């Protein structure tokens, strides 16, 4: 106990003096959170629409006024030629061309109705789809008004989330998860492989130190750092972005520490396998990068292609992020996220076995 405590305190002191390590474990995560928090990546934004009104009559004015009154749309009058260029540069989402014969009147049998032409930017399919939908429903309502009929079915819309979910609320648990992964994998792998290469481990192994105590000291050091990292990130999330942790800090910290232990085992396995420092970044990226994109850090994990989703759903970071997010956003308890916790525990066991297999102190 005493030996472990002394070694831990020495390692922590050394870590606190390591500017590069501090930069990667504190400054980079903060940058990620602030940048993505302000980017509001998940925000749908508004659909920007150009209108080329070739009719310029009261009907076309009525139509565009209705569109202009819809909050999701951003309308500007523009000649079709200019707007098409802008569309190609993805500066616009949609272009509506109102024909000169535009009218809002019941069509007599056999008479052709005026045709609105809508051009869409294929690079922004979501915005185009939403914009088209809104235009179509505006036309429907106008038609009902003109033909004096009422829709056969009414629609009452309600949000699924009790509270409106902002992107930062979604983002913060993901940032926590990804940073726990990065810290645990990279800091352990880099530090231990460097120690291995420089002969530090050899020197330590020439003492009768208990290896379990030394390893425990390394693990405890990272747990303390991870706890500090989580605390700072949460503080910034609370103060800067007004994020609410619905489920409370306790369960969140428990899951975060479980995640740290999981990724530490992977870091140790990597440190055991790698012979030189140059091998570490390559393999560490190979392990962390797919999880970065497919485990629901910056956007939903369901953004992963359907075919690989059965795999991505089982990634360590997916379990961690899902648990953190359900606690943070939906107010889940530890019992509610027991499936994810089980997933984490299974990965911890696998990672531990791998680390024990690959990490041989006697070899240094």
């Amino acid at each position, binding site marked *: 106990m005493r030996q472990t405590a002394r070694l831990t305190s020495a390692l922590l*002191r050394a870590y606190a003096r390591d500017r590069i390590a501090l930069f990667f474990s504190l400054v980079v995560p903060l940058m990620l959170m602030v940048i993505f928090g302000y980017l509001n990546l998940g925000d749908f934004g508004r659909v920007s629409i150009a209108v080329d009104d070739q009719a310029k009559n009261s009907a076309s004015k009525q139509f565009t006024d209705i569109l202009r009154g819809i909050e999701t749309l951003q309308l500007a009058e523009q000649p079709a030629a200019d707007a098409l260029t802008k569309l190609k540069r993805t500066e616009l989402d949609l272009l509506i061309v109102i024909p000169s014969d535009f009218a809002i009147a019941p069509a007599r049998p056999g008479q052709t109705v005026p045709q609105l032409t809508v051009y869409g930017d294929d690079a922004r399919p979501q915005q185009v789809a939403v914009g088209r939908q809104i235009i179509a429903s505006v036309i429907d309502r106008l038609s009902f008004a003109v033909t004096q009929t009422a829709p056969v079915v009414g629609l009452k819309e309600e949000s699924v989330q009790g509270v409106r979910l902002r992107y930062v609320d979604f983002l913060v648990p993901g940032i926590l998860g990804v940073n726990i992964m990065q810290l645990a994998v990279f800091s352990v792998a880099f530090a231990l492989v460097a120690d291995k290469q420089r002969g*530090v481990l050899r020197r330590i192994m020439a003492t009768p130190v208990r290896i379990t105590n030394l390893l425990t000291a390394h693990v405890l050091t990272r747990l303390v750092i991870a706890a500090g990292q989580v605390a700072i990130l949460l503080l910034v999330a609370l103060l800067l972005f007004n994020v609410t942790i619905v489920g409370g800090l306790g369960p969140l910290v428990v899951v975060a520490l479980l995640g740290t232990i999981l990724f530490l085992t992977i870091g140790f396995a990597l440190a055991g396998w790698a012979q030189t420092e140059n091998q570490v970044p390559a393999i560490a990226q190979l392990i962390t990068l797919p999880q970065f994109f497919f485990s629901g850090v910056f956007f939903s994990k369901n953004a992963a292609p359907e075919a690989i989703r059965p795999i991505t759903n089982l990634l360590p970071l997916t379990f961690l992020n899902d648990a953190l997010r359900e606690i943070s956003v939906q107010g889940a308890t530890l019992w509610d996220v027991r499936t994810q916790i089980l997933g984490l525990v299974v990965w911890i066991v696998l990672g531990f076995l791998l680390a024990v297999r690959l990490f041989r102190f006697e070899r240094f």
Partner: protein
Amino acid sequence: MPNIVQVQDLRKRYGDIEAVRGISFSVEQGEVFGMLGPNGAGKTTTVEILEGLRRADGGSATVAGVDVLADPSGVKRRIGVQLQSSAFPEHLTAKETVDFFAACYDLTVDAIALLRLVDLDDRARQLQEKLSGGQRQRLSIATALVNSPQVLFLDEPTTGLDPQARRNLWELIKSIRARGTTVFLTTHYLDEAEVLCDRVAIMDEGRIVALDPPRKLVDDLLGRGFTKPTIQQQANLEDVFLDLTGHELREA
């Protein structure tokens, strides 16, 4: 004098290479024992087996009364080591480094007193990676003394040091011997062996080819009718260098 290191028919092989080919020797308590030989002679392998860092393939060895092959950890508790091409944890001061190694032995030591012994007490609060080569070797010896070892193993302690730092380290080794600690060192500097060692073993291709006090080895050679082709100089270039630059340590 009782033998503090006893080696019998020790063997070690790496693949096709037979690094140590059945060597036997003993080290007496309180002496400075030197192991000489060219690179690749098997010195470091022998020393690392005695330090409990490598397993021998055959033979036996006891250090400070403990069987190295049966209880490497017991040997580690009783000896102090300075390894070749090893390093200390980064971002720790000299004092913290000594304390770190004391923690490895689960001992509490007066780190400043140990640093004073190697003349580093004024560097106690300096980060170890900022120390000069000679200072780091002395720090290394301080960390090897945290458990008051019965035998101190030094693997090429002066390699890479300037003449002043070398001589300074020789004085330190002599003072450690004067405290009654047995010193086992390897070197490929013959002058170092001549100055420091009570007895030297010369190793070549995994075998010990000679083992005697340095003076006797020289006398035996002369007795075999050996003469140097040139006249013995009264001084050499190193003497000139030291005369011009002094014996004082030049360390930042």
